[in-house]
Every structure is written in structure tokens, then in C-alpha cells.
């Protein structure tokens, strides 16, 4: 497609630096490419954090508007993901001050939208589909019962696969706090999983 910004076209220089330059210039094609690239991960992160599909959709859009207006603040040295998740997290905090974020279960209702990154098992059999749904429900319940401070570090570490240092940047906390929250979160999640074991 002519005129469409390609992240691969910038392979000659560090991608983060090219990203920072494009964000400073508010290049529409770059932003479109980023929205598509991070659609699933950002939405998933917001969904797990807020527990509401509606709130996650609203915050998804707000996050990208914030990326547009604050793009010049991205340094181009560190990875883009922690910066993006940091913006999203702040918006979640702002939103939770404005309204209560509830209805965690609706987040796992596949009838409302399309499935992304389906696993091979999804198409295998009705049994596999049922197990997948069960798995999602159990996870949803466990995460919903975890305190938010533990839930967010667990998501960033094990779902988004950020480093401990990157998580510290996202949640603006010392590394020691990140570690202790991870340890406590793991312990709490394990206990909840034991309770939920069929």
C-alpha cells in the first residue's frame, strides 16, 4: 500500500530511535502501524487491569490519543512497550478514580467480539473449546480476586514478559518493590489456584 508507514523500512537504524522521531513528528502512518501492532496486547492488558471490556475499549483509544499528544516524551532509548503500558496504567488509575471498574466476567465473553491469537486447540474439538473457556473463566476468577497491585505486576511479568527493570518503570516503583509484589502475587495466585482446582 503506497504511503503506508512500514516499521521494517526503518531496519537500518535502531527501531526505538526511529519510533521516537516518528512520534515527535506525530506521523499518522507510524501511529496506525503501532495501533495495529499493539492492539491485542494493549487491549488484553487494559482488560485484565480494569476487568471491563467497555472500559478497556475506551482506555485503549485514550491511550493512543495520549501517545499522539505525548509522543515527544518517549526517549527512543528504552523499549516502546514499557512506555506504552505506563501510559495505559496511568489512564486506568485516572479512570478508576472517576468511576468504578467492574464486571470482570464479561471480559471473557467471546460472543461479543472476535478471537485474536487463537490457540491450535480452539479449532480442534468442542471439548478443547470447552476446556479453553473453563481455563479462561478460572483465570478470570483468580485474577479478579487478586489485589490490583499484585495483578498488574504478574501481568506485566508473565503475560507481557517485561523485565523487572521495565516493570519498575511502568509502575514507577523501586526494583525491590516490584520483586516483593511479584513474590507475594505469585504466592497469592498459587493459593487461589489451589482453591479453584476442580
Amino acid at each position, binding site marked *: 500500500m503506497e504511503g503506508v508507514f512500514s516499521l521494517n523500512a526503518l531496519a537500518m537504524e535502531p527501531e526505538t530511535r526511529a519510533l521516537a522521531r516518528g512520534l515527535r513528528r506525530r506521523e499518522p502512518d507510524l501511529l496506525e502501524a503501532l495501533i495495529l501492532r499493539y492492539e491485542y496486547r494493549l487491549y488484553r492488558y487494559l482488560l485484565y487491569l480494569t476487568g471491563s471490556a467497555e472500559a478497556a475499549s475506551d482506555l485503549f483509544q485514550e491511550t*493512543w490519543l495520549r501517545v499522539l499528544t505525548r509522543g515527544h516524551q518517549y526517549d527512543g532509548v528504552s523499549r516502546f512497550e514499557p512506555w506504552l503500558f505506563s501510559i495505559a496504567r496511568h489512564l486506568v488509575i485516572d479512570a478508576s478514580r472517576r468511576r468504578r471498574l467492574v464486571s470482570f466476567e464479561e471480559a471473557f*465473553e467471546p460472543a461479543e467480539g472476535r*478471537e*485474536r491469537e487463537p490457540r491450535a486447540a480452539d479449532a480442534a474439538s468442542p471439548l478443547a473449546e470447552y476446556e479453553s473457556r473453563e481455563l479462561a473463566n478460572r483465570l478470570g476468577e483468580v485474577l479478579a480476586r487478586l489485589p490490583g497491585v499484585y495483578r498488574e505486576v504478574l501481568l506485566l511479568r508473565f*503475560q507481557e514478559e517485561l523485565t523487572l527493570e521495565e516493570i519498575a518503570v511502568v509502575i514507577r516503583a523501586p526494583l525491590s518493590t516490584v520483586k516483593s509484589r511479584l513474590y507475594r502475587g505469585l504466592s497469592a495466585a498459587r493459593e487461589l489456584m489451589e482453591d479453584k482446582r476442580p
Partner: protein
Amino acid sequence: MNDGNAHERAQRLMDRDRVEGIALEERRWLDAHLAACETCAAWAEAGEAALRMLRSVSVAVPPGLATSATLLVRERGAQLRKQRAQNLALAAACALSWVAGVASAPLVWRLFAWLGSALDLPGMVWQLAFVFWWFVPAAAATLVIIVARTRSRTDLNMSDSDFV
């Protein structure tokens, strides 16, 4: 090491392995302990199950989410670019006005002095009139900026609510 301590150590190592990683020697000890201890092996399995779930479960993305975000961002980007161009034009006009004001100040000062004496006005009056003349362009520019910003903010809020 008694059994209680061994279980505690194993659980600490399991967590540390997931968070920071553990040394080879510690891994060997942990593997040996898990092979021998059913309770700790069950704990390890429960932890792994939780993490497997977290990684593998997929969520449903609402249809058109990226498209609507892209449209919104493009529209806002266009508004910001337009606003920036307006601000630049205004800044250039202000700069030009300031340069012209400075360059013409001695001449205008003499003009106001002549008018003051011709109309037999007290010195304070024509000097205040000169100061007022000096500030007129800056005041007008400030007014334009305030009006433009208010209008742009209203436009942006309206376009957001239209979209969502």
C-alpha cells in the same frame, strides 16, 4: 536440613526462579527435592498451571477497535497539526508586530508628544496613551490565542464524544 526447612527453601527457590532466576546449583537441589517431595511438586505444578493459564488464554478483541482508534488518532493529529500551523502564524505575526513596534517607537513617541502639546494634554495622559498603543498588539494576540484555544478544546471534546 530438616523437612520443614527444605520445603520452605524449595518454595522460595521456585518463586525466585520465576521472578529472577536461580543458580545452577540451586536448580539441581530444587529438581532433586521436587523429585522426592510430592507436596512441593504439587505446589510447583499449581504455580506452573497459573502461569500457563496467564500466557495461553486468549481474549476477545472488540471488532473495529484498532480502526476506530486509528480514525480518532488521525483526526486528532490533523487538528493538532492545524492548531500548530495557526500558532506558528500567530507567533510570526506577534514577532513582526514587536519588531515594527520597537523600530517605530521613537517616531510614535514624538508623535504622541506632539499631539499632547497640540491638544494641551498633561504629560501623563499622552504617555499613558503611548503605553496603551504599545500594548494593543500584544493584548490582541493574547485574545486571539485564548479564543483559538477555547474553540479548539471544544472541537476536540466534541469529536471525542462523537466517536466513542
